[in-house]
């Protein structure tokens, strides 16, 4: 019994953690390139949940029954539309303020976050919305009574996050766009002088960040089945924590931070207390930052004098 409970909590933690990680990627990428936190990111994730549900409804009305086709096309459409949101946010809330103080874009991002929330609340209503169950069933290990399981949807989440991360890592490490991203990250002015269109690169980073949030949004929507206009808030905070924990600016760090946070929450909730799981998770964050101020995989920023 005990073994299965532990295994089940590990499955719970890893699934939750990989979702945190996917959302955290958006924070970390934007921070990496422009050294700013995109506080509207949680709400981009929320918008993607709505886009996913609407796309699914449209597909359904066209009589699409194949579940894998539905999931993949919802993913593609949602990534695209949410990417447009990411691009727009950068154009509206960040680019005009790029030359001003560091705090100005922070505030405008919070403004965008509130705007998105209110817009979705007014346009879609405040009620909890739901999507039908697409994938049911689970892989079970153990006897009829004592077992640990991973649902097929949780498997889809793990595979999709793995694939999304692999694509992203390839993009950043091996493509021209990735090379330009890294150059912009190291020094925006020098990159511009050397012919990199840094404005375009920053835009692409916002689009990529929004698209990974959309992958998370689609998966979460299909897994938990319900969402409202407010889901971006808690998820945004948790994902931001994961990004900081793993070392903000580092891609593998975001995933590692997400997994650490998810596993900590699941194990602490499972064996100690659900009431205090967030207290413990954030206390752990403080302890880790105490010993590793730049997070688990973060590299210290060198100040050139």
């Amino acid at each position: 019994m005990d073994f299965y409970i532990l295994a089940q909590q590990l499955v719970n933690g890893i699934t939750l953690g990989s979702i945190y990680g996917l959302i955290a990627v958006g924070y970390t990428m934007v921070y990496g390139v422009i050294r700013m936190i995109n506080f509207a990111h949680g709400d981009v994730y929320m918008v993607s949940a709505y886009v996913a549900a609407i796309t699914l409804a449209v597909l359904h009305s066209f009589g699409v029954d194949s579940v894998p086709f539905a999931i993949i096309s919802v993913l593609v459409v949602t990534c695209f539309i949410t990417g447009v949101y990411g691009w727009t946010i950068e154009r509206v809330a960040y680019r005009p303020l790029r030359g001003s103080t560091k705090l100005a874009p922070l505030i405008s991002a919070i403004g965008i976050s509130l705007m998105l929330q209110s817009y979705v609340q007014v346009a879609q209503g405040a009620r909890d919305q739901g999507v039908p169950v697409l994938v049911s069933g689970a892989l079970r290990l153990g006897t009829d009574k004592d077992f640990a399981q991973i649902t097929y949807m949780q498997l889809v989440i793990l595979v999709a996050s793995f694939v999304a991360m692999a694509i992203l890592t390839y993009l950043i490490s091996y493509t021209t766009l990735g090379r330009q991203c890294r150059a912009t990250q190291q020094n925006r002015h020098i990159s511009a002088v050397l012919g990199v269109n840094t404005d375009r690169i920053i835009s692409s980073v916002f689009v990529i960040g929004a698209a990974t949030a959309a992958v998370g949004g689609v998966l979460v929507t299909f897994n938990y089945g319900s969402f409202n206009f407010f889901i971006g808030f808690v998820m945004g905070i948790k994902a931001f924590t994961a990004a900081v924990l793993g070392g903000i600016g580092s891609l593998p760090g975001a995933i590692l931070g997400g997994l650490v946070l998810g596993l900590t929450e699941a194990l602490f909730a499972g064996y100690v207390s659900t009431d205090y799981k967030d207290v413990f998770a954030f206390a752990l964050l403080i302890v880790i930052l105490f010993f590793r101020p730049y997070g688990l995989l973060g590299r210290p920023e060198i100040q050139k004098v």
Partner: protein
Amino acid sequence: MKSIGKFLAATSLAGSLLAASSAFSAETIKIGVAGPMTGANATFGEQVWTGASAYVNEVNAAGGIDGKQIELVKGDDACEPKQAVAVANRFVDQDKVKAVVGHFCSSSTIPASEIYADAGILTVTPSSTNPIVTDRDLDTMFRTCGRDDQQAVVAGGFILDTLKLDKVALIHDKDTYGQGLVDALKKTLAERGVEPVLYEGLTRGERDFNALVTKIKSSGATAVYFGGLIPEAGPLIRQIHEQGLAVKFVSGDALAQTEIVSAAGGPQFLKDVYYSSAADPKQDPDTAEAQEALKKANIAPDNYTLFGYASAQTIVAALKGSNNGETEAQVDWLRNNAVKTAVGNLAWNEKGDVKDFKFVFYSFDDKGAPVAAN
């Protein structure tokens, strides 16, 4: 130039004073409606507002109270106690309301009602079921809903006697309503000699309760009682099913909403779900008039729409019954008279609680429609 400027300023000031006084002489009766109009629980605030405004529109169309029109003022507390106090101060100082429908969440109603009591403003909450709301000897505080301690006694009886289960996991959302309800149930169970196998609080706003569900599973519970609202109840119910737990899920009146079906992911997840609520107002012949009026106005008779409607009816009845008199007269009238409302015939005791409020248990049919369970 300077003197011209001063002159212009003076006239415009006089003009605005004039405008203010003319607005005053139009003599509307202002009633505040407070609740979560934004935030995670905005759907409930909207329902209360819709219900209250539907009734007020009717009264206004029929000539108002003594020829005076009623004007509703909206207050958004987002179910945040701090914001509730700000709304209450605005209602009292700025809007100068005569009565208040609200607030929604117990945690908001409790601090806000102190301000209304100081200002002598009649307050009728459509939904705050926490005992403390009316247990503080505030004369002006009334409710059209039941109390959690009544609800908990009924729930204890339902779980132990009707479902015949005694391994109960108690889950709450750490908010005044949810935890209050669960604590009251814990007391009821203790009186019957039953200790809960698990007592845990989850975090509002999250969607993943799998770790908690696994813990419920390992506790060996056969029944889960949840004190909380729909955004958390839905995913919790679904994850309990997905992890294959054979437990009965019991909850309070916050689940009396059609949206629980979509929040839980479909009616197939609601098979072993029960909730207590006021006896279905739609079956009560006393509410026929209100039903008809809502139908005519093309408004869905959602649970809190009905309670918002009923709260507005209570206030208007008290204002009319006391001939639009002082607060004391209004309070006196409510204590000695019954009002035919959208949720049935209501009468109040000294505390401001509804006399003989009845909680009934419901479960769901195959399509997710509520059916009486006992």
